[in-house]
Each structure stands twice: as C-alpha cells, then as structure tokens.
C-alpha cells in the first residue's frame, strides 16, 4: 500500500506491505533514530511526534499516519546546529550509550510544548514511558530542565519558532 505523509517537514510517499508498523516504515526511510527496542510499547525508544504528540511508533501501523505530520529526532537539528534540547541533554551528561536518547528527546518535545517550564515531577511524568538503562535519569532530567530554561531565555519554541502567538 502507498502511504503519504509529511516526515520532518518533507512530503513523503512510501510503498509498504499493509502490515508494516510506523517504526518499520520510518527506519526503512532512513530515520534510524527511531530505535527498535521492545516493539511492544514498553521502552519508548521508538517515540516520534505524530501531529505534535509523542507516540510509540512500534504500536502504530504505517497506514495510520496517512496525511499526517511525523517528526523524528532527525528533524530536531537544523543547519546551524543541534536543537537546544539535544545540546542541553548532551551537556548535562544525559547521553551514555545513546539508544534511548532519540525517544527521550521526542517525549521531551511533547512535554515542553505542553509545559514550557516543567517541575522535576512533571519531567519525570513526561518520561514515564521511556526507559534508560544507563543514566539513572538524573542527568536526563537535568538536561531537559536546562533546555526549558534555554528555550525560555531565547524566546523560542521547540520548533525553533518565536514563542508567543502559539
């Protein structure tokens, strides 16, 4: 079947078997930040944004994104450099093996879009569906808090847009 959707801002079409998951579709298109961890929604390492909300790509069929917007970690950095979230999590020491990082970043984008200045409890709640086996989460939480401060200081949203009008 043919699936047409927008991937990181680019109109994309793909021909896949109808039982393909979104995770398989995205990895097949080269978006290998979408990690195949558990393939049953438990680990969150395949998290992507679907119309702006973080979902586990392993629990969706490819056909479910028809006509919709998908954003992966590949869509975070721009030509100028890393996204503030990527930079902040990296600087805080929130990346060790890195396998969970893309999914965590996408869950964090969903979080900061809803709650630009989250408390530690809100950050932890926002990451409840993402497992990290290396860091113990402390540095990741620090990084997300730093990213929130950085975005607020520069008046930017997670899209790189000027914050304000929504």
């Amino acid at each position, binding site marked *: *079947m043919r699936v047409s959707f927008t991937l990181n801002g680019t109109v994309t079409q793909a021909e*896949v*078997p*109808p*039982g*393909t*998951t979104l995770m*398989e579709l995205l990895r097949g298109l080269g978006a290998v930040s979408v990690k195949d961890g558990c*393939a*049953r*929604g438990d680990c*969150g390492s395949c*998290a992507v944004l*679907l119309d702006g*909300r*973080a*979902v*586990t790509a*392993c*629990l*969706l*069929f490819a*056909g*479910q994104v*028809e006509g919709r917007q998908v954003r992966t970690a590949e869509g975070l950095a721009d030509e100028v450099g890393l996204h503030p979230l990527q930079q902040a999590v990296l600087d805080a020491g929130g990346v060790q093996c890195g396998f969970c990082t893309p999914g965590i970043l996408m*869950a964090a984008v*969903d*979080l900061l879009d809803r709650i630009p200045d989250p408390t530690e409890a809100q950050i*932890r*709640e*926002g990451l*409840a*569906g*993402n497992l990290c086996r290396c860091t113990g989460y402390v540095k990741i939480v620090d990084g997300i808090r730093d990213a929130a401060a950085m975005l607020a200081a520069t008046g930017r949203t997670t899209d790189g847009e000027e914050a304000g009008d929504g």
Partner: protein
Amino acid sequence: MPLTQIEQYHRPTDVDAAWHLVRDGGGAAVLLGGGTDLVVRCPPAVTALVDLSEVGLRYVEHSDDGGLRLGAMSTFTDLLEHPEVAAYGTGAVGEMLAQVGSVLHRNSATIGGHVVRSRLSDVLPVLLALDATVAVYTGEHAELPLANYLEGEQGPHVVTEVRLPPPIPGAAAAFVRFTRTTFDHSIVNGCCRVDVAEGAVVAARVVVGESSTVGRRLSAAEDALVGAPLTSEAVAAAADAARRTADLHGDWIASAAYRQHLAGVTVERCLTTVIDRLQGGGA
C-alpha cells in the same frame, strides 16, 4: 517484521462502511482504533485492517440530557485535556486517565479500543462506577450499559461512543490504583462513587479490579454504605466487606492475600477522598 498476514488496509469514511467491512470479513477483518493493542495482539486469522481514523468518531459532545458523549476514536490524551471529561465524577475520570500508561501511550490509545479489548484496565472500573453506557453500531445504532456490554458476547460491531450520564447532584467519586512503578499495570485498582441525599447514602458503587480482570462491583461493600450517613465507621465496614469479598487472584507480582488486603485499602482510600469531595461541594 511487518505483520505479513495483513493483505489489506481499509480506510472507510463512515461507520456503516466500517461495519460492513468487518461483518463481511467474517473474522478476517478487524477494526483498528489506536493500534496499541492490535499491533501486538493481532489474531492470526486476521488479513485485513479497517482503520477507523476517517469515520469521524474523534469528538466529545454533550448529550441532550446533560451527559457527555465520548467518540470512540478519542484518545486518552484528548479526554484528559478536555476539562469537562477530566472533571467528570468529581475528578475521578481525570485522576484515572492521568495514570493510564504513559503519555506516549495515552497519545494513541482510544477509548473505543479500550472497552473492546477489556483487559488490564484502569479505565473500566471508573466507567463502571459512573454507570457509563456504550453506543454500538451493528447496522443500526443501540446503547447498552457498559456492564452488559462487557458480559455479553458481541458479534461484529463498531463501538461508536462511550457515554457518561448527566452528573448526579450530591454524588462524588474517586479512583485509586496500586502499581510497582508509575508505568506498570495495576496490582489492584478501584473506584467508588457515592450518591448522598439528605445526609444519607442513597446509592453506592464499589468497583475493584486487578491486572487480569476488568473490575467488578462488590455488592457487600455497596450494601454496607447505603441507607446511612457516610461516616468513617461506614467506610471501615465497606473496606472490610471489600477485603472479604473481592476474590482476587495471586500471581508473580502479588499473592492473592496481598491483593485482598489491597482491595480493602483501595476502597478505604477512595471513600475517604469521596468524603472530602462531598464536603467540598460534590459534583
């Protein structure tokens, strides 16, 4: 590995077309809601998916009688972010939804898919306690109490809505669940609703569930409440009845004895919150 058994993917644009596809598919075609259950548990005989995204069931509306109609394709996030849904049942619905899975899964899982799937549920005890009904389409529209829907054998059907009845003045409800971690299945969960008129309990719902069952009403605990004021003695009696009659099972997560104990604690905590909410002005 893609599910190689799937040969067809349909995207009907109305409920009737979706229903015809599953009915005519004779077990080979299944409806697709959010997919969080189906992707992992697709029965081997299924060769066609009928995606409900385009049939127009993602909404929350008021019913004529003052209740709420939750379109089956509403995600848990849609419902949690809808102020009236979250506040329904003196906040019991919102307090439950905020604890279902993680945000990743609340962003995809639908209320319709949830009632059909009927396992490992935090949602159903709350809906049962609040007397929710289910609207189904089988060539014609029908509405039935959620409890009857869950007990009955359903043939091919589309769940179109979950309905919450008009709020009852003088009623309050609360939800509690016990888990090992935030993002884990409930060891025990429960919801209590108490309707008070002229200082006495006129109706009560005490529903207790566990990881493997959907939750059921405990009539002995409900009987312990009805007809008298909702005092701490009444709460203790209801909790004791729940502990004795919940009939929960043991597994590698918790023994049956521990679950029975938690059933009492669940009811006690729910009812204590209910008392607070009633004093705070009820619904």
